[in-house]
Structures are given as structure tokens and as C-alpha cells.
């Protein structure tokens, strides 16, 4: 731990947010601004038989109406991750135009866009665009999508099947299951969720015809990826003339990582009308079109020996892709899911089959955890079903099966780097007073309440890399991150980071790192992010990958210090290898003189005290860090619930989380990430469910009146503890903490509910009606 690093330093970025001076995309109004409103399909599956923009063009303030015809030549939306089916065939990608012209496949799919002088004029005119549809039958449930006679979404893609993927040794799994002393089977659903960042998606595109330069302000987690796509793929402008700015971004959670059609269309519109065009989604648009998360139907079988040791796990999953494959939609239920099915356990044989299907719903992509929560949910649920079947305590069965030696090669591709799973279990049991639970259960029973306790252990894979391995798995982009560290003549420092903070506090954590490394005040450091005109390259932030950008920053700092030592060797007139740097001061055993960091910076720019043919003037260094492996954070969670049998209402009475994130930059920020992740996971377990009408595929949960968001009054005070098994995959030993809470908490809560009700399983969300019907089967009918 340093003066700053590792400590709960208060956030440097907070001043602007608490005073209303944050700058989010919708806050930006440009000269000659116009506003866009999309015409969206009211049907989930229909043929477009006619479109008449004329009535809209007569409306006041309308500048332009754009349809697919105006985008002729623009390529379809790409899926960025190629998955091969088990027969070797490439996945089948249903074509997804920017604006639909022929067929629509989910409610809310964009059909046209109106550009007008004001937001209200654009919206009014969008309603006046007349589109004729011939409705087609729909399919909503992923379990139905492959059935005979179901509506087919895409021509030449039979059974709505995008791919039929597998991982692991099926024969070995079948052989082990055949001789297992115990076998348990479980069918479960992982409920579809809507990410719901509080800031809706927004963009503002500005075309400078003179310089042929396109600037797009965009709420996004990865502005660099968007610049590459917009230039190389869509040809909107040359890469060096394309600026993407993702300023303050109001939450991402994965849903601001994909490439969406609306933002691309707005960029084309700005070029067409030669004025800035701004679009801000309203909340219903966000519900309808932000990539959804989860939505799996899974059957799993676990085999155990007579002592309760795991022998084999077989998992068969149908994953709902929605109407089209989103940017990384294909990746989530495959290499971010099947690879995680070993959980924290030694399971000698694992096989995963995933069939990804098209349905008449919004495309599905990354949502906090993205594949890893789905895997943890399968593993942690079936482990409890097994514990119940063989009569072993849920904590004990985990202890019996933990991986204890690292690195550990799982049977499903990944090699875990480090961990102390039993240490986390012990922490969680102590934190939750697991031993005292029977007394609390008895006390609750005396009040007529059903109390249950649930243990769940998760492992996740963060800091996705290295690039060469990912390319072999179908990845289409490098997975390094970058940092450029600029030391100014007076010793202040700018860090140009390729990562992107949308709430994670990088402006503070990166500054903590650099301040301690250079021994300078944290106030003298400024973190620059989210602007491709200032930062040359990066990969943004998703998948709890800030350790990658942090490592790049660290390495760039090391280069600065190495150059500083060379400069100081000349200033001190001592051999270079005698120069040491610590606590912000360059010193040598060969002299009593010392040089503070700031003086070295001044000397680097003055360039009059060292040979500039050997050492270049100036003090700027950059680093691109390609991680050698993922990092593998882990943890054990204990949820305690109390159910009112009269109403079916479940209250989370207590929640304890013991996590291992390796080295932690700022415990205050990490705790905040856990609070948020746990809350989203509890939301999934108890309230949140994206629901479509099965007959029409209309989105029923399209506002906060209908979608069960977690609120302050339904949550316990979380108890947290941290272990620390540093990751060897980066120079700082960090692992990543953003998604953990959302991964471990759904199975912990459902395990607790199943314990309270003495049942094997119930599907999320455990809303009161569902629980009540279970408790009152006769009355429920």
C-alpha cells in the first residue's frame, strides 16, 4: 500500500457531479443543432409493404426523413465474434440492416428516422410517417424457437438456429455420469433482463464538410472500437478524421458496449443534412432497444461419487439471441459461459452444448457479468440440489470439492491463475454467522416466517486477453489496452487512458497509482479518457477489465522512471545503474545530491544538461499491455432470506460477501462496485424480468411502472470482506471487481429461498405470486 494506492481516497471526479457540472452527451447542444426521432416497428414480426414519408415532410420544422433507401450501400450490422458449430460450420448470421426495409423482427426495430429543428417536431413528424405492415406470426421463447412449425425469422437459417456449439469431452462426461454413485438433474431458466443504465443512450453527430471530419458524441463504453467500425466498416470518414467522444457516461453495464444501428444512422444523417444531429433515447426506447441480457433455458446433470465429490457436469443450454446477433451476442453464451462451468471446483469432466436461437425479441448481448453469471447460476444451483439429495450441508459440499492448487487447468479451456476459495468460504461463513442460522430460523418460525440460508461460490474471468488466444476463439479485435503518460515541464502529469470509466472512478484510481509511482501529489495528475482525438487507441471498459488499462499505465510510468534515471545520471554525474528512484526522488549512492521528480521533468524539457543525441528531450511514454491470461476473481456469498407465507413476499434479511480481487486500488470504490453488483443480482433473483407477450411479442415490461427495478427500501445492509490472492497475470496483481456482485448473488438468493421452502428449485425472479402459489398449491389451483 502506498500513500494513495490501496487506500479509500475520495473520488477526484465527484466535484462536477455533485454540483451539476457533469457533461453527458445530452448536455451538449451544438450550433445549428437538429434532432432525430426514430420511426420504430410496432410489430415484432412483419413484412413492410409500404412507407410514405410525405405526410411527415409537410410537418413544421422537418429537415429530412431518412429510410433504408438513403443508406443504400451501407453494410449490414456486423457480429464481432465468429462461433463455429460443433460440425465445424460457421454460425449463421441473419442480416440486420441499419434501417429495416423488408422485414422487421422485434418491436422497436428502427425503420426510418426524422430529422427536425426541435425534439418535439422530430417526434411529432415520426408519428406521421406512414408504414404499412403485413403481420407475421412470432416466436418469443427460446425453448420454442427450434420446434417444428415455428415461424422462421431469417431466410436460409433453418430452425432459427444460429449455431450449435460445444466445449469439452462429451464421451468422458457420459462415461463418468454412467458410473456415478449419485446423479442429479436440473432444468432452469436464467431470466431475461434489461440493463437500465440511468442515462439512456444518446449521440450527437457533427459533419465538418470542409475538413471531411466527423465528430460523434456518444454514450459508449468503448469509443475506440466505434471509431474503427465507423471508419473501416461503415466508411463514414477516414479514421484520422473521425472523432468519437464518450464524455461522462451515465452507467454502462454492458449495454453501452455494442454497436447499435441508431447511432450509425444518426452519423449518416449528419453527413446528409450537413448539420449536427442529436438523438437521445427515451426510457421506453431504452427498454425496447438496449441489448438485453441473459435469457437461457438450461438442463444440467451433475454426477458425484459416494463421498459427494464431483465427477462430471453436463450442460445443455438454449440461448436466446433475439431477432439478430448483436456485436458480441454470439460470444456470451459460449466462451464467456461454457468456459466458466467448472466454477470453483475440481470437476474432472465437463461438457457444454449451447444452441443459440433467433426469436422476435430485442437482440441480447453483454449485461453485467455476461455469460459468467449464467454459468455460476447453473453450477451453484445444481451443487445445492446435489447437497440436498445426498444430505450434505451446502457449505460442506463446496469445501469438499474446491480447487486448491493453482494454476489450475479446467476441462473447459481456462487456466485459473490464483485463488483461495476455502479462505473466502471461511470469511463468508464467519461474516454471516452461518453457525448461528438454526437459532435465527427457529426465531423466525416463531413469528410465522420461513427463513432460509443460501451459499454460493463464484469464479469469473476478467481482463480478457491475450489477443492471440482470443483470435483463435473467434475474436475480431485486439484485447490489449493502452496508456500514454505525459509529464509536463513543471511536473504535472496527464494520463491518456484507453480504458473508459462510466462510474468506476478511473480518474481517481489511475491517479492514485501514478501519484504513488512518481511520488507527486495526486492533485497534480489528470486522467484523460473517452476522446479519440486525444487518445490514439484503447479498448474501453467492459468485462471488469480496468486491470488491463491500469497495467498499461503502470508500465508507461516505469518507462518514464527509466528515462528519468538516465537523465539524472547526467545531472548527478554518476553511473546510470547507480541511480535509484523512490518516494519521488532520484538518488545515487555515489553522491549526496538528490533530484526530485519535478526537477527531473524540468530538466528533461530544458534539455541542456544531458546529451540529446543519446537521450531525446521531453518526457512522454506510452504502453500497450496485452495480458498473458485472464484474471480470475472469486468469492463466496451467503444470503439469508425471510419469506412471509401469507403473502409470498421474500425479504433479503442479510447478505454477506467475501471476495478476492487480488490487489485493490481503492477499497471504497471496490465496495461501491460490490454494492451495485449485489443489488443487480438480487434484483434478478427477486424482481427483474423482461417479459414479452407470448402471442404478439409486445414488450410488456417497457417502463419503470412495469419492470421491477431494485429500490432503496428492499435491500439489506451488505456485509463485505476481502481476501487477497494476487493475480500473476499483470504487474499489479489486480483481478477486477465490477461484475462479481451480479454473478454470485442470484444463486445465493435462490439457494436461500429453496432452503426456506425446502424445495430443489424455483425459477427467478421469485416474485411473491410465484412463491405464494408454491406454498398454497390447492388455493392457487
Amino acid at each position, binding site marked *: 500500500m502506498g500513500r494513495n494506492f490501496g487506500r479509500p481516497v475520495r473520488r477526484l471526479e465527484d466535484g462536477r457531479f455533485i454540483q451539476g457540472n457533469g457533461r453527458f452527451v*445530452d448536455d451538449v447542444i451544438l450550433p445549428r443543432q437538429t434532432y432525430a426521432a426514430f420511426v420504430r416497428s410496432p410489430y415484432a414480426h412483419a413484412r413492410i409493404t409500404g412507407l410514405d414519408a410525405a405526410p411527415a415532410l409537410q410537418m413544421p420544422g422537418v429537415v429530412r426523413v431518412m429510410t433504408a433507401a438513403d443508406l443504400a450501400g451501407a453494410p449490414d450490422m456486423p457480429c464481432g465474434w465468429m462461433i463455429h458449430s460443433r460440425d465445424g460450420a460457421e454460425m449463421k448470421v441473419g442480416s440486420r440492416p441499419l434501417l429495416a426495409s423488408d422485414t422487421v423482427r422485434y418491436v422497436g426495430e428502427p425503420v426510418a428516422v426524422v430529422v427536425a429543428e426541435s425534439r418535439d417536431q422530430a417526434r411529432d413528424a415520426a408519428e406521421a410517417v406512414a408504414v404499412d405492415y403485413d403481420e407475421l406470426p412470432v416466436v418469443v421463447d427460446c425453448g420454442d424457437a427450434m420446434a417444428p412449425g415455428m415461424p422462421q425469422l431469417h431466410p436460409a437459417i433453418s430452425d432459427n438456429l444460429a449455431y450449435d456449439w460445444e466445449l469439452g469431452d462429451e464421451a468422458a462426461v457420459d462415461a463418468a455420469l454412467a458410473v456415478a454413485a449419485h446423479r442429479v438433474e436440473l432444468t432452469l431458466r436464467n431470466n431475461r433482463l434489461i440493463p437500465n443504465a*440511468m442515462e439512456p443512450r444518446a449521440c450527437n453527430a457533427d459533419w465538418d464538410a470542409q475538413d471531411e471530419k466527423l465528430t460523434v458524441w456518444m454514450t459508449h463504453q468503448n469509443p475506440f472500437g466505434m471509431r474503427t467500425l465507423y471508419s473501416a466498416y461503415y466508411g463514414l470518414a477516414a479514421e484520422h478524421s473521425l472523432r468519437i467522444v464518450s464524455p461522462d457516461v451515465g452507467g454502462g453495464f454492458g449495454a453501452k458496449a455494442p454497436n447499435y444501428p441508431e447511432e450509425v444512422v444518426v452519423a449518416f444523417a449528419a453527413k446528409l443534412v450537413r448539420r449536427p444531429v442529436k438523438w437521445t433515447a427515451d426510457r421506453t426506447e431504452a427498454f425496447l432497444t438496449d441489448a438485453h441480457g441473459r435469457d437461457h433455458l438450461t438442463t444440467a446433470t451433475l454426477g458425484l461419487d459416494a463421498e459427494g465429490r464431483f465427477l462430471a457436469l453436463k450442460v445443455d443450454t438454449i440461448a436466446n439471441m433475439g431477432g439478430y446477433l448483436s456485436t458480441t451476442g454470439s460470444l456470451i453464451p459460449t466462451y464467456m459461459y461454457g468456459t466458466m462451468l467448472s466454477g470453483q471446483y475440481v470437476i474432472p469432466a465437463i461438457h457444454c452444448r449451447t444452441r443459440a436461437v433467433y426469436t422476435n425479441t430485442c437482440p441480447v448481448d453483454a449485461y453485467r457479468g455476461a455469460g459468467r453469471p449464467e454459468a455460476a447460476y447453473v453450477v451453484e444451483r445444481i451443487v445445492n440440489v446435489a447437497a440436498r439429495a445426498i444430505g450434505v450441508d451446502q457449505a460442506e459440499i463446496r469445501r469438499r470439492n474446491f480447487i486448491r492448487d493453482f494454476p489450475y487447468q479446467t476441462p473447459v479451456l481456462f487456466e485459473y491463475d490464483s485463488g483461495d476459495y476455502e479462505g473466502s468460504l471461511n470469511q463468508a461463513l464467519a461474516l454471516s454467522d452461518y453457525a448461528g442460522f438454526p437459532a435465527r430460523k427457529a426465531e423466525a418460525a416463531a413469528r410465522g416466517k420461513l427463513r432460509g440460508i443460501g451459499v454460493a461460490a463464484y469464479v469469473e474471468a476478467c481482463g480478457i486477453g491475450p489477443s492471440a488466444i482470443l483470435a483463435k476463439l473467434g475474436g475480431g479485435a485486439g484485447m490489449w489496452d493502452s496508456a500514454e503518460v505525459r509529464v509536463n515541464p513543471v511536473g504535472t502529469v496527464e494520463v491518456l487512458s484507453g480504458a473508459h470509466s462510466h462510474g468506476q472512478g478511473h480518474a481517481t484510481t489511475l491517479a492514485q497509482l501514478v501519484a504513488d509511482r512518481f511520488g507527486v501529489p495526486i492533485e497534480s495528475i489528470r486522467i484523460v479518457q473517452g476522446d479519440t482525438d486525444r487518445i490514439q487507441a484503447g479498448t474501453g471498459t467492459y468485462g471488469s477489465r480496468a486491470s488491463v488499462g491500469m497495467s498499461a499505465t503502470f508500465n508507461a510510468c516505469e518507462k518514464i522512471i527509466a528515462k528519468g534515471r538516465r537523465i539524472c545520471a547526467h545531472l548527478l554525474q554518476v553511473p546510470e545503474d547507480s541511480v535509484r528512484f523512490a518516494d519521488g526522488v532520484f538518488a545515487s549512492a555515489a553522491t549526496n545530491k538528490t533530484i526530485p521528480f519535478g526537477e527531473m521533468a524540468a530538466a528533461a524539457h530544458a534539455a541542456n544538461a544531458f546529451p540529446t543525441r543519446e537521450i531525446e528531450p521531453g518526457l512522454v511514454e506510452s504502453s500497450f499491455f496485452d495480458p498473458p491470461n485472464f484474471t480470475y476473481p472469486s468469492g463466496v456469498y451467503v444470503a439469508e432470506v425471510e419469506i412471509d407465507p401469507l403473502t409470498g413476499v421474500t425479504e433479503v434479511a442479510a447478505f454477506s460477501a467475501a471476495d478476492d480481487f487480488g490487489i485493490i486500488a481503492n477499497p471504497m470504490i471496490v465496495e461501491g462496485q460490490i454494492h451495485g453488483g449485489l443489488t443487480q443480482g438480487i434484483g434478478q433473483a427477486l424482481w427483474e424480468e423482461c417479459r414479452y407477450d407470448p402471442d404478439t411479442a409486445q414488450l410488456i415490461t417497457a417502463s419503470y411502472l412495469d419492470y421491477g427495478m431494485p429500490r432503496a427500501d428492499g435491500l439489506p445492509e451488505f456485509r463485505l470482506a476481502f481476501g487477497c490472492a494476487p493475480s500473476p497475470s499483470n504487474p499489479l496483481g489486480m483481478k477486477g471487481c465490477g461484475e462479481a456482485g451480479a454473478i454470485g448473488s442470484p444463486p445465493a438468493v435462490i439457494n436461500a429461498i429453496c432452503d426456506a421452502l425446502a424445495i430443489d428449485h424455483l425459477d427467478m425472479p421469485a416474485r411473491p405470486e410465484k412463491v405464494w402459489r408454491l406454498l398454497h398449491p390447492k388455493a392457487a389451483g
Partner: protein
Amino acid sequence: MTVALRVNGEDVRIDVTDRTLLIHALRDHLRLTGAHMGCDTSQCGACTVLVDGVAVKSCAMLAGQADGCEVVTIEGLARDGALHPMQAAFAEHHGLQCGFCTPGMIMLGIDLVRRRGAADEATVRSELAGNLCRCTGYQNIVKAIAAGARDMAGAA
């Protein structure tokens, strides 16, 4: 139509349409972009401002309805460079992450103190049911508001 308001201590007159919402009048006409539009159903509270001293979801009020009213937004809280105690409490207790819901949370917190005084955490949780945050899990927002309430009582 012309609407006359007193916003953060300054008298302003703005030309709006009869359907302009107060949130849009503040954001688009007065360029006070601290209050945010997070939903369209007055469910999320990101747009909360004080109208005549009372917390109001400004997406659920027409600008015309606010004619003659005194409006305080997040931009009007700090005085002479000194943060309002509720603002300071949010920074001290890490009551924000992405910062989008934060202005609404702070304004609601101030209104809560007006109505309930230095409320305990359970009261704060129940009073917060109309303001959504997706980042923090509310735990530190609750702590921040409870601490801000204590500080406001101390300052009064």
C-alpha cells in the same frame, strides 16, 4: 408562451411552448443541465428540483405550471464556492458512481430533511423509493443522505 421564473436566485423569462416540460426548460432554455431526464414516467427521480422549496420531478411538470415559482436546481446549491452539506456528504460517503442520478438524489435528500429532519437510515430508504440508481446499490446513498441530514441540522 412566456414564463417568468426565479431560478437559483435569478429572475428569468423564457419563451416555451405550452407542452414544454420544466426539465426541458431548465436544460434546453436555461442550459442548466444538472437535472437529468432518466425516464418519462416520473419514476426515476433524476430530474428532481425544488419548486418553491418542495422536491418536484421536473419531467412531470409543465414549464407553464412553474410560472411565478422559485426553482432551485443542483447548480444553485453551492454558495460562494462552499458545497451544501448534502453535496459534501455524497462525496464523503461515495454516494455516487456514474453521477447521473446524483443531482436528483441530492435534491430529494434536501427535501427529505425539510420534511423529516435528521432521519435515520430506515426512513431514508423508504423515502428514496421514488429515486432510482443503478450503480450504487443505494447503501452509500442512504449513508450520505443520513449524514447530510445530520450536517444540515448541525449547520442550522
